[in-house]
């Protein structure tokens, strides 16, 4: 009985680790807050590295009104907002727009050349092509992620498969 509980505990820990790792690995996470006055405030939390370049594409017709970075570290050109991250851990900017919609963005880490997509809060961990992803516990995780599932779903899939395998072994014994 105790052994059975230990195994269930191990499975639970594996499940939690799988859920936590992709979130921690996410490079840049965006939170967008659209106010009633037509001003959208965006906060980017940077955990991909110390020296990054981020490009955000804001909705057509939108105009960037402010950015928390020093003026020398950002540049708005058309629908693009380019930002140089020099050890800042978070950045916020605002834009006015008559059209609703969230920005899309990419980042490049100039410490190691890795890159990825800026991900919306709640959708963390979806890498862009070529983005670095932390090693996953098994190919099951990799396959699930490549199939377009979120890491949370992939983690759940792995845990479910692991638990199913465990049950099969137990039942087959």
């Amino acid at each position, binding site marked *: 009985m105790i052994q059975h509980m230990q195994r269930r505990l191990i499975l639970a820990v594996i499940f939690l680790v799988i859920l936590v790792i992709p979130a921690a690995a996410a490079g840049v996470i965006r939170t967008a807050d659209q106010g009633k006055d037509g001003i959208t405030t965006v906060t980017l939390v940077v955990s991909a590295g110390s020296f990054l*370049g981020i490009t955000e594409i804001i909705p057509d017709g939108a105009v960037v009104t402010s950015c928390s970075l020093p003026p020398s570290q950002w*540049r708005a050109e058309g629908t*693009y907002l380019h930002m*140089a991250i*020099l050890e800042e851990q978070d950045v916020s900017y605002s834009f006015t727009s008559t059209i609703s919609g969230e920005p899309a963005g990419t980042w*490049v880490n100039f410490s190691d050349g890795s890159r990825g997509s800026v991900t919306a809060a709640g959708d963390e961990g979806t890498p862009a092509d070529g983005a670095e992803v932390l090693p996953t516990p098994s190919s099951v995780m990799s396959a699930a992620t490549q199939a377009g599932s979120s890491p949370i779903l992939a983690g759940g899939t792995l845990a479910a498969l692991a638990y199913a395998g465990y049950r099969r072994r137990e039942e087959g014994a």
Partner: protein
Amino acid sequence: MNGMRWLPALILLFGIVAQSACAGTMPGDLNGDDTLTREELSESILRFLACSAGDGCIDAPAEQDVIDAATIYTLWGGKPKQVTDSAGEVRSLTRPLHRVVVMNSETLETMRSLKIPSSCVVAVDKYIAQMPEFFPEYQNTPSVGSIWSPDYEQILAGRPDAVFLYATVSAQSCDEIEQRIFSANPDIIVFRIDCYHPETYRDDVNILGGIFDRTKESDALVEFYTEVLDTLAEGLASPAAGSWPAVYFESWTDYKSAGPGSGYHDKIELAGGSNIFADSAAEYPVVDPEAIISRQPEVVVKLVGSGDYTFGGYSMINASAFGPALAGLSGRPGWNAIPAVSQGRVYLLHTAIFGGPQYIIGEAYLARWFYPDLFVDLDPPALHRTYVSRFQGLDPAVADPSLFVYPVP
């Protein structure tokens, strides 16, 4: 006339190299004042991003330039890095090295200990190809000949940022290579580093660590050596060491020994051995067989792995030859009167673990042989396995002691 054969190709290659060489300018230093500021790094990043987004690429840097600029800003304080090499020359780096030619295997081995990726090495000396078991990753890397017969065309064809040559070994040949490279392209930095002598090896490691921004790795390697050397020094300083045993050392050439001034002599003393030919005027004397017997060595160490004694080592050639070689050595006429033979203290040591960076492993074996009761905690086979696996990234099985020493501990 021979020296001019390579000149036309050199001139042709100079054009290619001059176009690609960037050692002279610091990436991101937009105003050229040899200082990379926060604003300049920021501007480089923004220009790169704008170009990547299709917003215009005028004056946009390449991604590698931005990565290098970030490294210079964070690790170098935004300034060119000044490095004093083993020859005492101050060399100025204006960007991290990405393409290097390495013309001494000891430096190449040390670079591997510092985890410098092999992709950074664009050409090596011809002897690397003769060590496929130890340098498997460089078997398809272009060869630039040797320091005695360098292939200048191949050196320049590799478009190196830097070339590594010995500092003191064959200094004249290396001086000439350095001068010719400078004449062909002054932007190529030539570093002179030995990675060869025990007394300077740890300094060389630190220099390499500084050049490649691998100080964490160089600190770890230096610590590995220091631990062993401190163990030897402390043991030999203790009263338990007593008087140093008389040692006859012989290279793979029969009756060729070592005298003061030679690396072998220094290494014998480092392990607490008293060289019976310490009074030799020559560094590598060929000694009189009778003199060996009359000087009554308590320990005999014969180096193998070359000449008539080419066996064992990383190539694993004919490992069964160790036993007969030892029997032949101990059975030399009159040697039954030598204490080392009568007491079973005759040993074979492979040159792979006595020359170059691996001298530390050979030293550990010598210390155990010279002082079997003093250095009981010194475990040379374990030390060897640690070196090849932790620092060289090789299978520890290649450090099988039966391939490097005899008798096997």
